[in-house]
């Protein structure tokens, strides 16, 4: 199998080769799997910190979305307003004459008022109107243009507007912003710009502290895992591991933990904030979700979480790399 060393001439000393990254990844992965409880300890700190971070950011973003929703009545509400008018006039026994200008408050219409006939109002529904006119709601201009070319559609539109079952729903929808504003006020959510700003500063402090605590926790857990493994590290060095390999090993290990912990933390944090907001504001929470901002938050938090973990592992990794191979000889555990 081998030639006896006795007959070999001394081989000139060479420089140890750097191992490909995959080897370090492989060994680091094994380490995490085998030392699951230790890994979970490090990971749980990241999970908590990131859950906290993302839930605060999510709540903040969703609140902004809800405030915006209160202040800007969405386009679809214009139809509800028309319906409400229909209901009010009918209950007062007045002849139904609704101004299509109500379709969009503040938007000036070119056409004339369209009379509504309550007697023929029932029976039709939105899909039929849509079939007749194309997409609804369009802009009031488009709607009027459509009416001009298809007079028979006006009747169906009127019927849709005054569908009895949908009238109370329309009223609920119309009053929703006021109800939400009242809810938010009741819950002590800051509403004025000054309040919002001071609240934001407070949260930033809290977040900074939480991340600092998490960082110290990670650092501590990593330092412990290095001290625990002094003999293993010393042995690897005796077997020919370079300092850079040991550093890589610990950094990759922390990278794995960082990714897993951060993803878990994001899932937990998003879930918790979604649950909390839904239980407080019901479906209001989901009326105007700023999805792109939430996506941005998730990406930001992911990088913060991973960077925090790897940063926490830098010093311990350096400490491990500096460990002398003699450490392998120490007998005490």
């Amino acid at each position, binding site marked *: *199998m*081998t*030639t*006896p*060393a*006795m*007959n*070999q*001439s*001394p*081989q*000139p*000393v*060479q*420089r*140890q*080769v*750097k*191992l490909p990254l995959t*080897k370090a990844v492989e*060994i680091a992965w*094994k*380490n995490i*799997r*085998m*030392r699951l409880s230790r890994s979970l300890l490090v990971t749980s700190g990241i999970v908590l910190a990131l859950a906290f971070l993302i839930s605060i950011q999510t709540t903040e973003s969703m609140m902004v979305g809800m405030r915006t929703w209160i202040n800007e009545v969405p386009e679809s509400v214009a139809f509800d307003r028309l319906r409400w008018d229909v209901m009010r006039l009918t209950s007062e026994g007045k002849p139904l004459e609704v101004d299509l200008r109500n379709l969009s408050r503040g938007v000036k219409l070119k056409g004339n008022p369209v009379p509504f006939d309550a007697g023929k109002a029932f029976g039709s529904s939105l899909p039929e109107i849509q079939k007749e006119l194309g997409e609804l709601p369009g802009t009031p201009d488009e709607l009027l243009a459509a009416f001009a070319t298809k007079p028979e559609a006006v009747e169906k539109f009127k019927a849709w507007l005054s569908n009895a079952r949908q009238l109370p729903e329309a009223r609920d929808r119309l009053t929703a912003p006021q109800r939400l504003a009242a809810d938010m006020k009741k819950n002590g959510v800051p509403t004025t710009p000054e309040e919002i700003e001071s609240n934001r500063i407070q949260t930033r402090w809290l977040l900074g502290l939480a991340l600092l605590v998490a960082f110290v926790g990670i650092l501590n857990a990593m330092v412990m895992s290095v001290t625990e493994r002094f*003999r*293993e590290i*010393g*042995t*690897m*060095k*005796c*077997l*020919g*591991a*370079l*300092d850079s*390999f040991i550093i890589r090993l610990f950094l990759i290990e922390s990278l794995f933990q960082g990714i897993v912990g951060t993803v878990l933390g994001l899932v937990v944090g998003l879930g918790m904030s979604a649950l909390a907001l839904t239980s407080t504001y019901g479906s209001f929470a989901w009326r105007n979700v700023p999805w792109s901002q939430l996506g941005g938050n998730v990406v930001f938090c992911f990088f913060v979480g991973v960077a925090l973990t790897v940063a926490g592992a830098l010093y311990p990794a350096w400490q491990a790399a500096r460990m*002398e*191979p*003699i450490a*392998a*000889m120490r*007998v005490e555990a």
Partner: protein
Amino acid sequence: MTETVQPVLPTGGPTALSEYTVRTIDVNRTDKMGGETVEALKGVSVSINRGEYISIMGPSGSGKSTLFNMVGGLDKPSEGKVYIDEVDIAQLDAYELAWMRCRKIGYIFQTFNLIPVMTALENVMLPMIFAGLNTADAQDKAFDILKRVELGHRIKNKPMEMSGGQQQRVAIARAFANDPTIILADEPTGNLDLNTGKLIIELLRGLNKEKGVTIISATHDHKMLAVSDRILWIRDGKVDKIQRREDLKIEEGTIEGAHGESLH
């Protein structure tokens, strides 16, 4: 990666292959401990023959461990020279030292020091991987060596699932992974019972004969001393005496020291 450093030959030394694997010349080692200077070694010159089985003996604090670490390339002298395979280790940088530890020296520890997260096979493969061998070749070679230490049936087991003797045999297989010139064994039987220790010693002695590798061990185990070609006694940082096996008086597991005192 391919650049090489030619062996640094000692001044006036032989140009051909030396008969010595390790030589120390007037090695001193001083350490600062709590502001006090401690002399661990005071002018030690020893030459270890190629293929020799040598044991280093000495009470704790004698400098035995320091010398042992030095001949194993784990420590550098404060003064004097240490040559391993005719290379002055003080001249080597970190990369060359790592290469040397990987290829030229195999380490065996009292506490076995297997990597707990790896199987027996992976443990033996590790130094080969560090030496740049590809996985398939390393697997084949590691399997062969494990068969040699009679652990061919336990290659998939983790250290925790093996007895002390089995773990030490894996460690021996790992030490031989890159066909080293020197095996450095630190109390290899220290954590094993009598019979297991005996088997380990026989295995080491067998491999020593078979592969012509130099085995240097630090030990208190009399069974180990009994198979040594020479025993190097260290006392107060100096070489006290060097005994050949033929000169040993072994009586019922005790060895008489140079000064007639028992070494237990």
